[in-house]
């Protein structure tokens, strides 16, 4: 109790008209949060002989670490594989979510609540609980160590279904009704009326799913144990317990983050809103 009193006393100071403390708190937090990312890129651009330098600005700039990374790893191939994986997963989840969301938003049918629960409940089943049977099935299908093996089990996500259902419930019924009176079937209505009108929402959700898929670690680590065919796993080859080659390691890490961070630079608001409204998986 006393601690909460003390805390609220401190807090109240900030709620003045000119929120100096607020700016200070956010600025400190911002610097703390961004520093490791800055340090990652700063190290990656240092000349190899300056790697251990603690000067805040890398100078002279050097691309040597990137050159080494490209020699050691097939960065182009890894980037391509990672992109194929993330795009495949995002598109799959978008499509299954679109179809299921359409069913939930446009019809009343028996078992609707129960079936919705079937989708939502998957949120409670962590990968680690289902990994052994799934690994065995992928092995039977002969897709271990392939990108397909990573994509297949991830083609449907509760997140996609839940968010698209919400978007479609806000969709004006008159438009659906008009399309029906036009004699269009539900399939044609979905693609000619619903999808074009939901384009911004679909794009925002697609980016969210892409970012999630790009940063997914557990499943690729399991399925691609031998081939290490995506960037995050390739990066691990620099991470021994002894004798790390920090420069190329930071260069590779920088490239593994770059596509998502670039997207973030352009679409900060959409990405932040997407995560804050939907939560994390």
């Amino acid at each position, binding site marked *: 109790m006393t601690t909460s009193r003390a805390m609220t006393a401190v807090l109240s100071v900030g709620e003045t008209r000119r929120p100096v403390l607020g700016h200070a708190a956010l600025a400190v937090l911002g610097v703390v949060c961004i520093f490791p990312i800055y340090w990652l890129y700063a190290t990656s651009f240092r000349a190899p002989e300056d790697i*251990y330098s603690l000067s805040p600005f890398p100078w002279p700039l050097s691309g040597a670490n990137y050159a080494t990374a490209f020699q050691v790893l097939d960065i182009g191939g890894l980037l391509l594989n990672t992109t194929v994986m993330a795009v495949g997963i995002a598109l799959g989840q978008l499509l299954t979510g679109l179809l*299921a969301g359409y069913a939930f938003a446009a019809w009343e049918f028996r078992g609707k609540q129960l079936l919705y629960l079937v989708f939502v409940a998957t949120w409670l089943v962590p990968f680690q609980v289902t990994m052994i049977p799934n690994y065995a099935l992928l092995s039977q299908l002969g897709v271990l160590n392939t990108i397909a093996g990573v994509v297949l089990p991830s083609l449907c996500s509760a997140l996609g279904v839940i968010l698209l259902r919400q978007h479609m419930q806000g969709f004006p019924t008159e438009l659906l009704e008009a399309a029906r009176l036009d004699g269009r079937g*539900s399939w044609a209505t979905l693609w000619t009326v619903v999808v074009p009108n939901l384009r911004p929402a679909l794009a925002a959700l697609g980016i969210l799913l892409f970012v999630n898929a790009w*940063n997914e670690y557990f499943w690729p680590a399991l399925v691609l144990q031998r081939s290490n065919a995506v960037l995050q796993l390739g990066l691990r080859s*620099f991470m021994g317990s002894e004798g790390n080659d920090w420069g190329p390691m930071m260069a590779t890490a920088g490239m593994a983050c770059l596509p998502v961070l670039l997207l973030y630079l352009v679409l900060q608001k959409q990405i932040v809103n997407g995560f804050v409204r939907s939560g*994390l998986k």
Partner: protein
Amino acid sequence: MLATLAPHEAPPIVDATAVRSPRPRRVGALVPYLYLLPGLALLAVWVYRPLTQTFQISFVSWNLLPTSPARPVGLANYERLFTLPDFGSALGRTAVLILGLLPFTIVVPVVVGLLARRVRGRAATVYQGLVFAPLLVAPVAGAAVWQWLLDPRSGAVNQILGTTVNWLQEPGPAQLAIIVITGWHVLGFAVLVVAAGLAGITDDYAEAAALDGATRGQITRWITLPMLSPTLVFLLLMTVLLAAQWSFPLIDTLTHGGPAGATTNVYYLLWDYGFHSFDAGLGAAAGVIFFLGFGVIAGGLVWLSEKVSIHDN
């Protein structure tokens, strides 16, 4: 008490859905099921089938090789699990991890959120952009840069602090490092969730209370925080359910559960049983226990969140 004055509007963590209106009904009765089919089929194959199989495997002894037969052993895996010291200690370490993350997912975000309530405009966007960025860093890339920062000889952390701690090779520091790195990843997200929650609280009650002579401290304690409670329960739920998942990539790349098992939490233990010891039965039994345990905890927290919402109404 002032709290009774405060009708509550839940913060928009999830889109408020539009009021449902009647939909066309006379389409063939099977049609909606056909649209659900792809998603349901995928979930059946990749979530519910393996979940049932995990239950089955938890009663057999099997080394994961397709050629070797699985031998039924009844409850032996569960008995073994509860007698092994690993299990209890992994649970304990998961609790430590969750408690250690609460400052990052609740305490700091609430303090900063309250301090920064009146920070608006372009400055706010810039701060947001900075604090949120770590969430978007690929986990292995985050692990890589922290391994570099924490390097005992030349890492920035030891040099700045003037210490010589071997962060990832000693049990205590390694646990702390995993908590801090995980916290760094999710802190900005939590800050923005709290900010969104605070933005959803109307100023009317605070103003009314201020007119009645309430101090700022009283307003924060008895109006703002209670109205924020659904957001806080949401963050608590995420922390409890996902802490072990968030830290998994870091543990797998930085410490491999060590040193001496000091960073082995429940999910890392499952991974270890399944794919290092190749003891599928034991791994499955542990998976079943964790799944049920977390299910109960999640149910409890959802119940709690409904209770706080009603209480504030």
